[in-house]
C-alpha cells in the first residue's frame, strides 16, 4: 500500500492543525489584527526550520527514498499574478478563516458548514481556469 505514508502524514497534519488551533477563524482574526504571536510563531518556526533543511538538502545533495535527487523547481518570475492572486486569497482567508488545508480539517472536526467553503473553493479554482487566458499573469 504505497499511499499509506501519505495518509499518515495527512492525519498528523490534521491533528497538528486542529490542536494548534490554526483551523480557527478566531486565530486568523487574531493574526490579521497582530494581537498574538501564536500564528506567526507556527509559520515562523516552520519557515526557519524549512529554510535550514532545504539548504542542507541542497548542500549535501540529499536524495529521496527512491534514491532520486530532491529537486526544487523555481516558480516562474512574475509579480502581477502573485500579488493579485495572493490578495484575492487573503481576502477569502480573512473572511472564511480558513485556507484549503484547514477547511477539510474543520469538516473532520465537526464543523460541517466548512463544507460550503470547501465546495466554493473548488468552484473558485474552476473559475480561475475558465478566466485564466484573460487574466494578467
Amino acid at each position, binding site marked *: 500500500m504505497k499511499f499509506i505514508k501519505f495518509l499518515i502524514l495527512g492525519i498528523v497534519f490534521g491533528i497538528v492543525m486542529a490542536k494548534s*488551533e490554526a*483551523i480557527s477563524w*478566531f486565530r486568523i482574526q487574531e493574526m490579521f*489584527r497582530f494581537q498574538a504571536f501564536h500564528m506567526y510563531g507556527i509559520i515562523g518556526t516552520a519557515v526557519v526550520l524549512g529554510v535550514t533543511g532545504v539548504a542542507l538538502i541542497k548542500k549535501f545533495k540529499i536524495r529521496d527514498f527512491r534514491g532520486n535527487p530532491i529537486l526544487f523547481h523555481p516558480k516562474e518570475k512574475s509579480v502581477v499574478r502573485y500579488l*493579485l492572486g495572493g490578495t484575492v486569497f487573503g481576502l*477569502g482567508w*480573512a473572511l472564511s478563516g480558513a485556507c484549503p488545508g484547514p477547511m477539510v480539517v474543520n469538516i473532520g472536526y465537526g464543523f460541517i458548514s466548512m463544507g460550503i467553503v470547501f465546495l466554493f473553493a473548488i468552484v*473558485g479554482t474552476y*473559475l480561475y481556469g475558465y478566466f485564466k487566458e484573460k487574466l494578467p499573469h
Partner: protein
Amino acid sequence: MREFITQTWSWWFSGTMIAGIMFFLLYFGQSFGFSANLRTICAAAGLGKKNKFFDFNWKTQTWNLVFLVGAIIGGIIAKQFLSSGSPVDISPETINDLSKLGISAPVSLQPTELFSLEAILSIKGFLVLAFGGLMVGFGSRYAGGCTSGHAISGLSDLQLPSLIAVIGFFIGGLVMTFFILPLIF
C-alpha cells in the same frame, strides 16, 4: 499527560511538526502544497474536457488526495480523542474588537455567527462562506499556491514569487479584516 495533550499545542511544537511534514513529503518524492488538490478535484470531475487547465493526468496527484483524506481523519481524531472542549484561547483585545462587529466571544474553535446551522441557512451567512471559499480557491490557483505551497514550501526555498504571494495574502487579509468585515457585520 492527558492535560498536556488536550491543551492548545504550542507554536514551536506545531511549527516544527509542519516543517517535519514538509520534509517527509520531500523525502517521499513529493512537495507540500494543499491547494493543488482543488485543481485535481476539478480534473477528476472531468472538467478537463471543457477546459485545458484541468486536462492533465490527475492520477499522479492521488498521493495528495490521500493526504487530504488523512487531514479529515486527523480532524476527527483531534476532536474525538485529543480535545478538552474548551474554547479557543484568543487574546482579550481580539475578543473586544470582534464584539464590536457583533461576533461573540469563543465557545468553541469557530464563531457561531458564521458556522452555526442558523447562520448558514440565512442568505447573508451562506454568502459569507461561499464568497470566502470562492476567493480562496480562485486566489490560490491564480497565485499558484496557498499557505502551504507559498508561505511554507516556497519561503523555505527562498523563492521571491512566494514572498510576493505572502505579501498579497496579507494585503487581502488586512483589507478584509479592517475595511470589509466592518461593512458586512
